């Protein structure tokens, strides 16, 4: 099964660089984890 998820990130006046870094780290970790647990999907 091919699946795809789309997210909208919208930043604003109170968004900080620290928040962006934390969000990026979290996203990378979660997406990597989910892909590892979906063995039917091919990724490199």
């Amino acid at each position, binding site marked *: 099964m091919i*699946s*795809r998820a789309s997210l909208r990130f*919208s930043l*604003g006046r109170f968004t900080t660089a620290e928040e962006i870094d*934390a969000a*990026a780290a979290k*996203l990378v970790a979660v997406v990597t984890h*989910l892909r590892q647990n979906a063995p039917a999907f091919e990724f490199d």
Partner: protein
Amino acid sequence: MAGPIYLDYNATTPVDPRVLEAMLPYYREHFGNAASRQHAFGWKAQEAVDRARSQIAALIGADSKEIVFTSGATESDNLAVKGVARAMCAQGDHIITVTTEHKAVLDSCRELELEGFSVTYLSVDGAGFVEPEAVRWAMTPRTILISVMAANNETGVLQPIAHIGRIAREAGVLFHTDAVQAAGKVPFNVAQAQVDLASITAHKMYGPKGIGALYIRRRTPRIPLAPLVHGGGQEQGVRSGTLNVPGIVGFGRAAEIAAAELSTEGARLSHLRDRLWDRLSSTLSDVSLNGSARSRLPHTLNVSFGGVEGQALMLGLEGLAVSSGAACTSAAAEPSHVLKALGVPDDLARVAAIQPRSIHHR
């Protein structure tokens, strides 16, 4: 970092402390009704409304007299689309809009179709743009209104509204734009864009919820507009109801701050936005950007992640307040109408663009 990270500013924004500060006296000592002409309470309220009206007008390059307050952009969109159509039904019955518009515009158009109007829903290309020439091709002698948003709420894509405005003005057809996401974020000027009507709302620019405005260009003869709300005749009879004075004051202050900080804030946010994209695209495989990278809001990023399931992703992202425009797997709900529209191949989009979706002539 304490608490969740809020990255959903296109959904709504917190009220800026400076805005709240400006509003509070109008709940307390200056609580008067702006329509009370006989005493100081009313004058004080009226004064504040006048000031806010010019602050909001200044943000979009309008005159104060061209601003009508509403309960928000949903009402502004409804008023513009239904108000013009119903007032002009003797002159024509055809409206042109785009598939990626906000539901407030699309559903107003659907409602008008039930009343006998015909609506052309133009498609967009893979980057999210509507082709201005497609607007020209779609026009008929019966066309009374064109409605195209300035910036898309999901992708941030900026439509070529100045080009469309020129086409509309040349043809003598009224042009409405939903400028909710553009106003206060990128330069937006009603004269430059040649728009006749524009919807804006306070809660997307650090003002309070429940207060919006419709810009109505002043010209002779007046732009025909059938009110949706009848009553005391406030707002030049276009929108009755006691004015939400604290909300209006907050909206005015929010517009003033947005205008002053627009360029520095835009640069700061586009830098942060690009940093987020760089991190994601350099670390993860199979991520793609939705919508144009070239012409979009500085603070908006819409990304698709291959090989993950939407619901699982949202669950995993607890602590991150983002919006899932589309969670498309075989099992999940319908993808967003905006992202779906971006997936239409160019050639198909072109064909669809010149064929009205439905025609119910009276």
